[in-house]
């Protein structure tokens, strides 16, 4: 047996793979790719032998207008989804309100499983315009955020929660000071999934007159104009990629430093 002073410190500090820089150069690959694709597509359109209908359908002014509409619809949907899904997810993880879980999850599952085109057709026979489409797509894309909020809160280490309670933090203090901050990366991942879902589904609402890049795609199908159809599809894909990329950056920024 050795005395305390002779003891070798076994308890060595972990070697840290610290990530001090928030951004790395590879973050720029996705936007760069998007720019290349968009520029080539626009260049191709300006060179291609298009008839007057096509030229009108993919004019720069229209593309820009529809893109803005598309972005606006998507943002409204995701804000709505977050505003509804995060509080519901929190309620499900509270002991007093856990009983709502089957109802809420059932709603989320039905929302995601229901054929979105059918929903749009049914709702469309009663109401058209911006809000009906936003509400349908929001219901459709609520599940990822809801599920991730629940998982994000439940995965918080029991020792951390026990310590928080044991030192006298109130339930509200634990929720806002410990559980939600530690759930941010997971909730944000759900929000990214919802974002991409929304971007991809918004064109289906075109026939309800909600706007967006679907207004290039669907007329192009009906009028059998392949160039315009491809152009519309490319812009939607690029938009989805860019929005997911932005979501990733936001996710990183929102994640507390200690767990990044």
């Amino acid at each position, binding site marked *: 047996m050795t005395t305390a002073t002779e003891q070798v410190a076994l308890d060595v500090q972990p070697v840290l793979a610290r990530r001090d820089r928030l951004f790395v150069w590879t973050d720029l690959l996705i936007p760069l790719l998007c720019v290349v694709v968009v520029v080539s597509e626009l260049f191709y359109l300006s060179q291609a032998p298009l008839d007057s209908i096509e030229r009108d359908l993919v004019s720069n002014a229209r593309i820009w207008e529809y893109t803005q509409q598309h972005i606006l619809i998507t943002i409204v949907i995701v804000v709505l989804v977050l505003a509804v899904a995060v509080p519901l997810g929190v309620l499900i993880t509270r002991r007093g309100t856990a009983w709502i879980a089957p109802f809420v999850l059932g709603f989320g599952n039905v929302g995601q499983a229901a054929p979105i085109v059918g929903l749009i057709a049914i709702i469309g026979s009663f109401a058209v315009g911006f809000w009906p489409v936003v509400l349908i797509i929001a219901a459709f894309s609520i599940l990822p955020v809801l599920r991730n909020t629940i998982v994000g809160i439940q995965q918080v280490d029991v020792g951390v929660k026990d*310590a928080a*309670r044991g030192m006298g933090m109130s339930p509200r203090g634990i929720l806002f000071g410990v559980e939600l901050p530690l759930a941010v990366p997971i909730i944000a991942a759900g929000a990214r999934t919802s974002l991409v879902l929304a971007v991809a589904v918004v064109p289906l609402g075109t026939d309800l007159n909600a706007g967006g890049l679907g207004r290039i795609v669907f007329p192009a199908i009906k009028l059998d104009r392949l160039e315009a159809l491809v152009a519309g599809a490319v812009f939607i894909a690029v938009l989805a990629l860019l929005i997911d990329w932005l979501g990733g950056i936001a996710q990183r920024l929102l994640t507390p430093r200690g767990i990044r």
Partner: protein
Amino acid sequence: MSESAATTTEPTTRPSGEREAGGVPIVLDGVTKKYPGTDSAAVDDIHLDIAPGDIVMLVGPSGCGKTTTMRMINRLIEPTSGRILIDGEDVLSLNDVKLRRTIGYVIQQIGLFPHLTIESNVSMVPKLLGWDKARIATRVEEMLSVVGLDPAEFAHRYPRQLSGGQQQRVGVARALCADPPIMLMDEPFGAVDPITRTKLQDEFLNLQQRLHKTIVFVTHDFDEAVKMGDKIAVLDKGSRIAQYASPEEILTSPADDFVSGFVGHGATLKRLQLERLDSLDLHPADVAEQGVEPLPMRSTLHDVLDAMIADGLDAVQVVDDGHIVGTVTLEDLLGRVRELRAEADARTGGAASESRPGATPGTTPDPELEAGQRKDDPT
């Protein structure tokens, strides 16, 4: 950096003039916890008197209810019946959240907030209590120094950037920061390696000598209970107290078969861990062989015996303050063991035997029995 370098800040000076609050008494009076749908109670009618400033070890096999008992004190678990008095006040009459802010809480999983800096972790309770910023800042610095972490180096780090031992130091600092009179500790050193555990135990005992908190300490490790405890409550199923006494008494006269089974083999050897060289009269220095490293005066008799066996000697030299002050022989050790045995027999009034089924559980220990010899200087 290494753990040893981190502890160079000697935790003996107190930078700020704040006085630490000493411990207060805790009384568990007929406390019972019964979970709905179960036949037997998890904790069944426990009575426990905890003196202010004592470390009381709750020790027992898994599932005996020791953690449940501890967690009822700060009402993380609500008792089904019974009273828990802290400094005479029934905790069930207090607001549970506010109550917990006055009780330090350290757990095996440590439970540091991974998204907050060490500084924010340590200052959590003072913030909840609404201390002003300047006071919190000085207090956090002081607490980190007390647990042997350099504030300049560690305050702005995050928990994952610390080793397990360092994290538990922060855990202790966090629990002590608002200067609670009571600490609840649930196997706090259970998750670190044995060497770090010994170090943390030693440092914590040193700290406690200045702080005199009332500490309820849960462990399943009887050796830890012997080392850390002023008193040990050996618990059987349902938190039945098989014996509540000083470590010395439990080792020399276990109350029943359950306790002696729990103490395990080598009770006498464990008993020697509680005795230091200064309890013996030393021979003049020339008896021992030369060339063997002398042992410091504060070594336990267990260390002495270990050294003798290791080197095949029947005598070793003792050093105090760098000077050889005398020699201790194997005969001295055996003599001391016989004395201890005799003292124990005199106390229980029976002949020396392994178990004493007749002894009453929960008997208070003889206060004169070496109470002062385990810890260096219990003022």
